[in-house]
Structures are given as structure tokens and as C-alpha cells.
């Protein structure tokens, strides 16, 4: 018996593996994400290898170039028709490249770019030991107020890791709204969440609050993720697949994946309903909808203000994008189930955010509640379940994110001895002391309030119109009522700034570098352009309103 023969006694030859299908990755179509993630990796390498002195510039350079390049890639893809006629599903079904995805990616990238500018601002905080400092802690590991912290400050340390962290987060956000299966969806969620948790903890001033914000955000975020994941598991159980297309077909009843023998246990719609509720809950957590909003004010207040602005803008865009895709691509067959529920969520979110905001005394918390109310308005557009609904939400998100970043950028300018002066009483009479800054902030507030000729009005009109057309007229009425309530607190801030006498120990307004100025200027420009001549952008949003399936 030959050795071979002996061998064959207890082994059998498998089919020879003559080929493994190499996954077909459309690098071109994924370029935006890849560029950003790649830059983030480079950022990590920079941290490791570039001397401390040059890191800031290197990181800033890499981040800006990467974001700009990614944005260019998005534009190129859109110009190439990937948003409309050539919309497709790439990366073996994991990523959708279509209108909403490109529109949102573009928005996220621009918002991210502007946010990076505010991250890099080093002219606001007073010079410490001869080093210009940004909003971030010198050394995250050092105990607040300890000698170690002072030493780190003295040594000119800087947490330049914020740039790669932000890039990772942006990378995750780019994937999130374009994820085409639940696994990618979940991974993207974590990829953008984890860096944000860290970013929250890195404030230079008021570090205890910053750390507290990070802990709260992290714990609650992880808690929500767990629910999302469990929901994914249930959907998987229901459909036997996590691919959006397949799940949608199963929900529709076009195909059946469940073994008939198991139909008693698995063909149960309860799995689907509970699972989708849990996934949606995770998304509602990210957008800050009532009753999953409670982290928002604390985290917005505690996080470094540039991070708050970034989170408030980009997270919301990404999360709403994912929500739209989930509801419009995966669960349209369930719309009679989820619409009433989302309706309710939208109502309490609009009202809750607006009502609680009235009694806020901290500008960042105020803006947090305002962002909750806005989440409610956007949900009104989501509920429309029409193509107009999609495009109105896209438009709203684009308009909103720039106003938000701009507003938070203005918040960073108003400072006193303890850093940013975020208590509202400190803002009294700001209009007299620095009319320009106050006027700019007033423009942002008016946009938040939805006053005509600002982007806020165009956006609000778009979503309400979509909602009304979608048959949610009552929601529109609730929407205008909560807008009225919301108007009250925006106006309160304006009154405070312009009609109150300045206090003697009031804050000073720092003169920012061109970076922040760009952020604010862009915010104002977008606010006014989208308010006065929104047609081009509405067209864009409306062309981008079709999902690929």
C-alpha cells in the first residue's frame, strides 16, 4: 500500500480549491470613504513618527487635504451620474452608492471640513507657557488640575490625536448612511461612535464635565448599540439575511427564506417588528429624539465646543441618512406599522425639545435642546414616505449642519477667565460690545427659529410641505406650534444680546483665526443663500432623492 493509499484510508480528497472569488471592490466608488479612512490611518502614523512640534501642522494638512479630496471624489461620483442613473450597490452588496448616499457624504465631508477648522483653532485660548493652544487637553491621561497636567501644558503637549479621531468618525459616518447591509450598518455605527466618545473627553477647560460627558455618552451609546445589535439579530432571525435588499423582499413577502418547518417560530412578524423597533431606537438615540435624547444636553454641554458642533451636525446627518435608508429601503413594507410610531416620536420630540429649551440657562444646553426639536422637524419629513420626503430631509440636513457648526463656532468666541462663557447671563449686552458677532449669532438663531429668508425657513418649509403632502397635516400643525415655542427661546437670546445692558464683568469676544472665521462665514453664507435662493440645492436634493435597492 502506497503511502498515498494508506493516507486515503482515513482521508478523503476534497474538491480542489481551484479559485476563491476575490471580492470585487469598486475602489472608485468607495473612494471618499477610503480616502478619509486612509488619512486617518496616516494620522495615526503621524502621531507615532512625526516630531511633536510638527504634528499639529501635519495633522491639519492631512485632514484638510483628505477631506477636500474625499469631497472632490464625491462631487466626481455625483457628476458621473452615480447619484442618479448609475446608482449601484458596491463592495459585494455592502455599500450603496446612490443619490442620498452621495448627498449625505458630501454634506458630512463639508461639515467635517468646517469642523476640522474649528478643531484647529488656536487663537482663542490665551497662550499657555509660550504655546498656542487649541480647545483640547494637553494630555488626556493627566489628572485634571494635577502637576502632570501642568507639566504637559508647559511642555507644549497637544492632543493632536483629535484629527485622526475625527477622520475615523467621519469615515464611519460616510459609511453609515450608505451601508447596505445591517452588518456594515452596525460596524459603521461603532466606527463613528467610538472616536466621538473619546473626543468628548478631551476638553481643555472644565475637564471633569468633559469626562463626565464622555462617560455618559459612552455608556448610553453602548447601551443603545446593544439594542441595535439585538434588533439586527432579530431581523436576521426573521429574514435569514442582513442584506437590505433581501430583508426588504422578505418583508414584502416576495421571497421566503425560512424553512417551512420553522415557520411557527421564525415566520413570526413579531421578530421583524421588535427587531426593527430596536434598530430604529438605536438611530433615534443618535439623532437625539425624545425619549432617547437625554444624553444630548449633557454631552453637548460637556464636550469641547468644536466637538459639540461637529457631533451636532455630522452625527445627525449620518444618523438620519441611515434612518432614511432603513425605513425607505428595508422597511417600506412595514410603513403602516412604523409610520404611526414615528409620528408619535416626532410629535413628542418637537414639543419636548422646544418646551424644555425654554428654561435653559446655558447656551450649549439650549442649542442641544434646539437640536432635539430640530430632530423632530426632520422626523416630520421622514414620515412623509414620499420622494419629496427624502429630498426635503436631505435639504434640511444640509442646511441645518452648517448653521449648527457656525453657531457652536460663535460660542467658542465668547470667553471669560474660565474659558468659554456659556451661561446665558454672560451673554447679556453682547450686541453692544461686539455687534458683529452678536449679529452673526442672531442670524444663526433666526435660522434655527425658521424665520423666512434664512435656510432654516426653507428647510422647515420643505419638510412640512413633504409631511403635509404625505398626509401628515396634523403633524405640520404640531410642528408650527413647537416652532412658535422654540422661537421664544431663540428670541430670548437675541433679547439678551441686544436689549440688555452689558454686565461689567462680562465676557470678552476673542478674535479668531481665519479658520474659525471660515467656519462662521461659511455658516452665514449657507444660511443666507439657502434662505434666499435655495432652488439649486433643492434641485440637488431632489435629484438625490432616489435610493438604490
Amino acid at each position, binding site marked *: 500500500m502506497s503511502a498515498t493509499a494508506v493516507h486515503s484510508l482515513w482521508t478523503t480528497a476534497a474538491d480542489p480549491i481551484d479559485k476563491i472569488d476575490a471580492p470585487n471592490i469598486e475602489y472608485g466608488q468607495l473612494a471618499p470613504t477610503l480616502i478619509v479612512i486612509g488619512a486617518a490611518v496616516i494620522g495615526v502614523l503621524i502621531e507615532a513618527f512625526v516630531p511633536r512640534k510638527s504634528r499639529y501642522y501635519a495633522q491639519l494638512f492631512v485632514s484638510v487635504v483628505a477631506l477636500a479630496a474625499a469631497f472632490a471624489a464625491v462631487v466626481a461620483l455625483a457628476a458621473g451620474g452615480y447619484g442618479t442613473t448609475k446608482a449601484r450597490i458596491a463592495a459585494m452588496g455592502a455599500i450603496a452608492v446612490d443619490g442620498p448616499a452621495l448627498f449625505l457624504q458630501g454634506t458630512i465631508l463639508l461639515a467635517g471640513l468646517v469642523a476640522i477648522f474649528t478643531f484647529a483653532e488656536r487663537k482663542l485660548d490665551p497662550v499657555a507657557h509660550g504655546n498656542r493652544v487649541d480647545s483640547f487637553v494637553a494630555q488626556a491621561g493627566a489628572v485634571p488640575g494635577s502637576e502632570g497636567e501642568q507639566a504637559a501644558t508647559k511642555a507644549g503637549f497637544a492632543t493632536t490625536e483629535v484629527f485622526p479621531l475625527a477622520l475615523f468618525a467621519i469615515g464611519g459616518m460616510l459609511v453609515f448612511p450608505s451601508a447596505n447591509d445591517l452588518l456594515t450598518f452596525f460596524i459603521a455605527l461603532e466606527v463613528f461612535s467610538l472616536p466621538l466618545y473619546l473626543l468628548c473627553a478631551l476638553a481643555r477647560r472644565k475637564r471633569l464635565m468633559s469626562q463626565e460627558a464622555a462617560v455618559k455618552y459612552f455608556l*448610553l451609546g453602548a447601551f443603545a448599540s446593544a439594542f441595535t445589535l439585538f434588533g439586527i439579530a432579530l431581523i436576521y432571525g426573521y429574514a435569514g439575511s442582513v442584506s437590505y435588499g433581501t430583508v426588504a423582499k422578505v418583508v414584502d413577502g416576495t421571497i421566503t427564506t425560512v424553512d417551512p418547518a420553522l415557520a411557527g417560530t421564525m415566520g413570526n412578524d*413579531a421578530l421583524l*417588528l*421588535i427587531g426593527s423597533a*430596536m434598530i430604529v*431606537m438605536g438611530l433615534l438615540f443618535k439623532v437625539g429624539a425624545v425619549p432617547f435624547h*437625554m444624553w444630548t444636553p449633557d454631552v453637548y454641554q460637556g464636550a469641547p465646543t468644536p466637538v459639540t458642533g461637529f457631533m451636532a451636525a455630522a452625527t445627525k446627518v449620518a444618523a438620519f441618512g441611515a434612518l432614511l435608508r432603513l425605513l425607505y429601503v428595508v422597511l417600506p413594507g412595514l410603513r403602516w406599522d412604523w409610520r*404611526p410610531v414615528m409620528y408619535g416620536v416626532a410629535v413628542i420630540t418637537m414639543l*419636548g425639545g422646544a*418646551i424644555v429649551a425654554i428654561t435653559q440657562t446655558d447656551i450649549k444646553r439650549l442649542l442641544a435642546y434646539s437640536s432635539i426639536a430640530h430632530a423632530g422637524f426632520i422626523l416630520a419629513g421622514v414620515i412623509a414616505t414620499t420622494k419629496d420626503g427624502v429630498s426635503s430631509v436631505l435639504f434640511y440636513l444640509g442646511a441645518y449642519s452648517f448653521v449648527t457648526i457656525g453657531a457652536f463656532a460663535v460660542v467658542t468666541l465668547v470667553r471669560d477667565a474660565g474659558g468659554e462663557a456659556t451661561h446665558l447671563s454672560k451673554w447679556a449686552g453682547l450686541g453692544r460690545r461686539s455687534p458683529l458677532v452678536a449679529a452673526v449669532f442672531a442670524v444663526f438663531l433666526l435660522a434655527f427659529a425658521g424665520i423666512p429668508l434664512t435656510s432654516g425657513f426653507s428647510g422647515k418649509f420643505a419638510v412640512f410641505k413633504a409631511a403635509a403632502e404625505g398626509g401628515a397635516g396634523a403633524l405640520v400643525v404640531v410642528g408650527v406650534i413647537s416652532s412658535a415655542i422654540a422661537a421664544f427661546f431663540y428670541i430670548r437670546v437675541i433679547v439678551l444680546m441686544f436689549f440688555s445692558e452689558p454686565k461689567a464683568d462680562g465676557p470678552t469676544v476673542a478674535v479668531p483665526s481665519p479658520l474659525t472665521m471660515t467656519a462662521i462665514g461659511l455658516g452665514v453664507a449657507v444660511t443666507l443663500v439657502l434662505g434666499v435662493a435655495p432652488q439649486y440645492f433643492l434641485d440637488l436634493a431632489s435629484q438625490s432623492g432616489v435610493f438604490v435597492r
Partner: protein
Amino acid sequence: MIALLVAAPLLGAAVLLCGGRRLDRVGHWLGTALAAVSFVIGLVLFTDMLGKGAEDRTLNQHLFSWIPVEGFQADVAFQLDQLSVTFVLLISGVGTLIHLYSIGYMEHDERRRRFFGYLNLFLAAMLLLVLADNYLLLYVGWEGVGLASYLLIGFWQHKPSAATAAKKAFLVNRVGDMGLSIAIMLMFTTFGTFAFGDVLEATGETGEGKLTAIGLMLLLAACGKSAQVPLQSWLGDAMEGPTPVSALIHAATMVTAGVYLIVRSGEIFNAAPDAQLAVTVVGAVTLLFGAIVGCAKDDIKKALAGSTMSQIGYMILAAGLGPIGYVFAIMHLVTHGFFKAGLFLGAGSVMHGMNDEVDMRKYGGLRKYMPVTFVTFGLGYLAIIGFPGLSGFFSKDKIIEAAFAKGGTEGWILGSVALLGAAITAYYMTRVMIMTFFGEKRWEPDAEGKQPHPHESPKSMTIPMILLAVGSVCAGGFFSIGDRFMHWLEPVTHHDHGDSPLSAATVTGATMVVLVIGVTLAWLQYGRRPVPSVAPRGSLLTRAARRDLLQDDFNHVVLVRGGEHLTRSLVYVDHTLVDGVVNGTAASVGGLSGRLRKLQNGFARSYAVSMFGGVAVLIAATLLMRAV
């Protein structure tokens, strides 16, 4: 030409009021001249008219379309007929005289220029009132004279009493104006027009109800302007104005506008007997009311104001009698214009000499010091009480006759009231005469301690008084002989002799008897005995009459107090209730906010609880949706 009548004084008013101090020295002459211009134009038009046949004496002039709106046509157009030309002459004639008088009377007032401006404004408005060919334009004049009256009563604005009186006059008149505007609206909805000609021709085409309503509303207007009960209360207070104003506006012309309105709207009233009855009742009541008030007042001007009210009561009464009385109403109006203006100017002359003292109890024995005033005032006195041969005799007598001629119980009652009024008139006018010009001097120094030095007034004042006295004496006779006045007006107002149960001679006799009784009573009370310089307490009626028969008290309690309470409570309501609802909503949203805010307690675990609860609700709701 007709427009010029109005334009001349209007120009005067504009120039004088806008001209500034430069015109201070010539302003009064300018004003007087323009008034005279009006009078001359009036005379020219009058003689013109005399030259025509009785039927085509009406002149029309259409100036321009005033408010052209779909389905609504209001024109600025004038109509000059016998009735209006009578008024034009009275207004511009007496007006010119009083302008003249005022030059002297207001000599020491630094705002004399303005006074003449207001007087000219008044003339313009009054002429517009009588010349308008439609009710809306009449309304403009109507309110215009109200404005002038307001300005002139309150001319001495630094006196709070004058300002209050002016305001009161305007307000009470506004109530009347409301009547006029409702009447015009009724005409518009009924006839589609409010031009005299069109409305008055069409009265036959609508029901009596509508016409009665229009009539009553016109009566309300007349009550306001002519100080008839129940809107009479402003006239007494209006005496706060300078005396020439009282003479011109509150005796001779403006207050008679109500009579003009009723006579002008004769066709409406003729077709609405109920409204007519109301007119006579108002006239009769006011006739007595004014007379009684006139008996009790010690203020010479207020006594005369009471008299004016009473005399206009006569006119209104006559106008209410319909075609029987229209002519006599207007005739009495004209003669009254002469003698009452004369009396007021006389009173003004007395005051002028007595340091502006108005209390008759502080006069006495003035006849020697002011002979011209005494004589002219005396002639006016004789005219008003109806001394035979003087103008009041003719005009008043005719009204009493006409009242009886009304026939039936009504006629008896109205006639008796008119007779009684004549007696009281004789009484109070004699009282005024005696207290002022006869008896002992009861002069007292004025507030600044200046002893009065009564003297005759300057020429500019006495000449108008003399001219008016001449009018008081002759006008009645001139009009009545051969029923001239009746024939003159008949084409406009028509005339009906009625059916008198008493002969004219009987009525005249009765009038003479009551006249003697009234004069005698007054002489017994004031001529025989010295007049106390402080008023005795008097009977209940006297005290009430001194207070205008308590009408002001009624107004004060019901309207002023009630109004104050109403506005005050409404201010409260506005603040607490209307505003409160909104503020309350805002506050409750704020409160809700405060409570919801507490949920945000800073503990991550409680946030997690809310999330957990949220997801539970979310799941439950999703499942529930499916179950439903």
C-alpha cells in the same frame, strides 16, 4: 357764486390760522371783511332771486364729485333756495355784525387773530350746512360748526371749565351726529341716495316705518345741535365761551341748525306722523325746560342760554307741527336771531363794563351808566317777551296759534304749553332786566380787588347792538304784514293753515294776559323788593333748576361714572383676562418646561431608564399597530 359764499370765510380762516403773528394787527379786520363779503354775495344772490318767479328761484351748483365709489355718489354741490338764502342772510348778516362787535370785545386778548379765524371757520361751516344740496355735505357743515363751536367755547383754554365745556359740547353733539349719520345710512339703503331732491321726492315710495326711523334719527341730530331735551345739557356750559360766540353760535345761528334740518326734511316728517309727534313733544318739553332753567340762573349768560333753549323749543315745536308750522318756525328763528343776538351782545357789553362779572346779583342800576346797552337790551327784552308790535310778538304768537291749529287734544296740550312758556318767558326776562338795569347797585370788587367802573362800550360794540335792536323791533312786523315771509318760503316748505279751534284774536288775547301775569310776578319778586346779592336757598324746584333740573347730575352718575367704571374694568379685563390668557399659556408652557427639565437629573442610569422605557414603548406601539 354760491361756492364763494363759503369760500370767502374759509379763506379767512385758513389765512388767519396759518398766517402766524404777522397778521396779528390786521387779522380782525380781514376776518370781518370776509364775513361782510359773504353777506354782500348773499344779498346779491337774494336780489337776484327776488327777480325771478317763485317757482324757479332754486339755484344749483355742482362743484365736483366728492366720493365716487361703486354704487355710492356723494357730491360737493350746493343748492340755494328761499330757505337757504334766508339762512345765508341771517348767518352772514348777524355774523358780520358780531365780527364787528368782537373787534372791540376781544381787543385786549392776545389771541384775537385766532379768534377771528375760528369765527370765519364757523361762518364757512354754517354756510356750507345751509347750502349743501345733500345730507352728507350738510353733515360736513354740521360737524364743522360743531368744531368751530368747540374751538370757540374753549377759546379761553387756560380755564379748565372752558375746556371741559367745549369737550362736553362736542361730545353731546357727537351723539346727535350719530343720529344724523344713521339717518343718512338709512336714506342710502332706502333710496340709494342722500341728495335732498332725490330723497324728498321719493318719500312716497317707501313705508312709513323707514321714514319714521329716518325722522327720529334726524330728530336726534337736531336735539344735539339745537340743545333740545335730552341732549340740551351742553348749552349752559357753552357760555364759558366769549360772549360774541354765545351770541352768534349759541343763540342766533348754529343752535338753530336743528330747526333747519327738520324743516328741510319736511317731506320725510310729513309722511311720518309718529316722528312728527316726537318732534313736537321734544319741542314742548324743551320749551318749558329751558324756561324753568332760565328763571333760576343768576349768571346772566346762563339765564339767556336757558331762554335760547326755550325759544328753540318753540321753533322745534312749530317744525313738528308740519306744514302748519314750518314757516313760523323759520320766522321765529330769524327774529330770535336778531333779538337774542342783541341780548347776548348787550350782556357782553354789561360784562365788559363790569370786569367780566356774570352774576346778576352783583349788577343793579346799570341803566344810567350804560344807556345804549340799556336801550338796545330793553328792546330785545320787549321783543322776546312778545310785546305787541315787536318782532317776537308776531313770530311767537303765530307759533302758539299754529300749535292750537294742530287740532285735537294734541293741539290743546301743545297750545297750552306754548302759552305757559310765554308766561315764563315774560317772567325770567323781566327778572334779568330788573336785576341788571334797575334797583340798587350791588357791585362788588372782582377777584383782584378792582372795583367795577361801568361804562358804555366802544362804538364797534354798540353799533352792532343798535342794528340788531332795529332788527328785533322791525323784523316781525316786516315779515308778517301781508304774510310776506309765508309767501316767500311757501314754495319750499309749503303751508297749511290748519284748523284752529280758537280764533287768532283769542290766542293773541291769551298771550297778552299771560305776558302781563309773567311780568307782574317778576316785578313783585325782584322789582318791589331789593335783590339779595347772595342767592337765597330757594325752593326745591329753584334749586333743581339752578342745576339744570338735575340733568347734569344724572349724566354724571349714569354716563360719566358708569363710563369710568366701565373703562376701568375693561382696562383691568384687557390686562388680566385677554392678556392673561396668553401670558397664562406662556407661563404654563414655562412651568411645564420647568417640570420636564427636572427629568434631566444628571444621572446616566436614569437616562438609561428612559431609553429602556422608550424602547419598550416603541416595541409595544409597533406591535400594537399591527394588532390593530
